[in-house]
């Protein structure tokens, strides 16, 4: 057998990014950093995530304002994944910090296959207008050491979106899992197992 000790550049970036995504989802509320491909700002982090998880075997959907098309083209180009209706997509990307009610329509899996629930990716702005909202949010559950809970490390997520996720994931283990990414590469994970309280 021939050894293959060198990993190509894209493979290497995906592998590193994946380890960070795994870290993000197993430590909800904490921020990790992804390494994005060049030339796709402001969606470098979203494309980096797509690149390491999406391919022709999955369907994705992009929701949002004018820049949604740019994001969709970038993801399709980087992964070869097929676009899909929101209700059937495995991955749903929001080109902004809120889902505009879209998250509610994403699939949550069935009782015998909760793992079929979608993965949501929210693209946050680099300089959020409101940064103090996050102190009204408390996260507890698997991956969070403090039993009293923690405040999410990333700011700029509207409180209504947290409320939205509370509702969507009320029927655990059915639900959706979310990543929040910033153009700088910062990522925070919020799996459905995280209990969210908004004050």
């Amino acid at each position, binding site marked *: *057998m*021939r*050894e*293959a*000790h*060198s*990993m*190509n550049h894209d*493979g*290497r970036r*995906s*592998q*590193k990014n*994946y*380890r960070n*995504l*795994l*870290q993000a*989802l*197993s*430590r909800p509320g904490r921020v990790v950093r992804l390494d994005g491909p060049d030339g796709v700002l402001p969606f470098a982090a979203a494309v980096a995530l797509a690149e*390491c*998880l*999406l*391919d022709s*075997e*999955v369907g994705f959907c992009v929701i949002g304002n004018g820049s949604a098309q740019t994001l969709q083209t970038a993801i399709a180009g980087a992964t070869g994944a097929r676009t899909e209706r929101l209700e059937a997509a*495995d991955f749903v990307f929001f080109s902004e910090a809120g889902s505009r009610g879209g998250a509610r329509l994403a699939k949550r899996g*069935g*009782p*015998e296959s*909760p*793992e079929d*629930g979608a*993965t949501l990716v929210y693209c946050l702005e680099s300089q959020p207008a409101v940064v103090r909202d996050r102190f009204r949010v408390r996260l507890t*559950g*698997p*991956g*969070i*050491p403090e039993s009293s809970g923690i405040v999410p490390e990333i700011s700029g997520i509207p409180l209504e979106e947290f409320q939205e996720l509370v509702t969507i994931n009320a029927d*655990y*283990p059915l639900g959706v*899992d979310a990543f929040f990414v910033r153009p700088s590469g910062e990522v925070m994970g919020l*799996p*459905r*197992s995280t209990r969210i309280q908004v004050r």
Partner: protein
Amino acid sequence: MTPRMPSRASAPPADWRDSLPPAEGRYSYAFLDEGAKREIRRRMLKAVAIPGCQVPFGSREMPIARGWGTGGLQLTLALIGPEDVLKVIDQGADDSVNAVNIKKFVTRVTGVAVTTDTAAATLIQTRHRIPEEPLRPNQLLIFQVPIPEPLRLVEPSERETRRMHAEADYSRMWLYLYEDIVKFNEITVGARYPVLVNRRHLMDPSPIPRWDLPKLDRGEALFLFCAGREKRIYAVPPYTEVQPLAFEDFAFRVEAFAGRRCARCGSVGTYLDEVIDDATGRRTYSCSDTAFCEKALRGNSVKEARPSGEDRA
């Protein structure tokens, strides 16, 4: 009836070797192709998001046999990168034949560094043990799982157990343990003791001894489990509640070693292997975690092997 001779579709090439693809570059980094890695990576994330829930995946055939760690191996290969330091153990031992074989394969397809030192490893693939040395937050422990379904003990049908998990209907498992107590005045489950994860999913912790179960409860590392033959991935994230099934008046108990110590390093409070000497028939005990034993021996040369670690058979 007309006889007719069989003929092959096309004449074989003059030299059969011509039809083989070239050896160069025949295997990609970490053996699995990128598509397979991505699928495993997606499934692992879902497993982390729903602690203890078995996530099906399209398990690939590996060049080691089904049942010999192909699940753990696929996770290792989907995760590994050039900066990783790998440790592989079987029954707690780094130099057990199967562990050596898996290490040999992974280094052959990745060239990563290997170690026996638990603290130095970033990825640890294990069969049947959790290292004695506490794991750190950035370490990943990957379990080889023969039978991922904890309910298989009471129900052979996958269709049925899938339903039971959906409804969190674990009554038959409780009944099994209860009947055990009625019959034997004791829970007779040895290794592979069923646990409830995040108060929701009943999980098979793989055949680790009961001794190791407390290490799963609110541990600092991420625990990943994979059954290659049964095609299931599941996980226990850090700081997740993992409770062995037990009754109020029948507490869960780990294996008792009656205060015995390792005959080699002198440690007390490690999981011990019982070894019977051919010549004398005497029973001795030594650490099942060989790397821990080595470390204790080096760091603690004053404390020599003590005869109290032995016992007359």
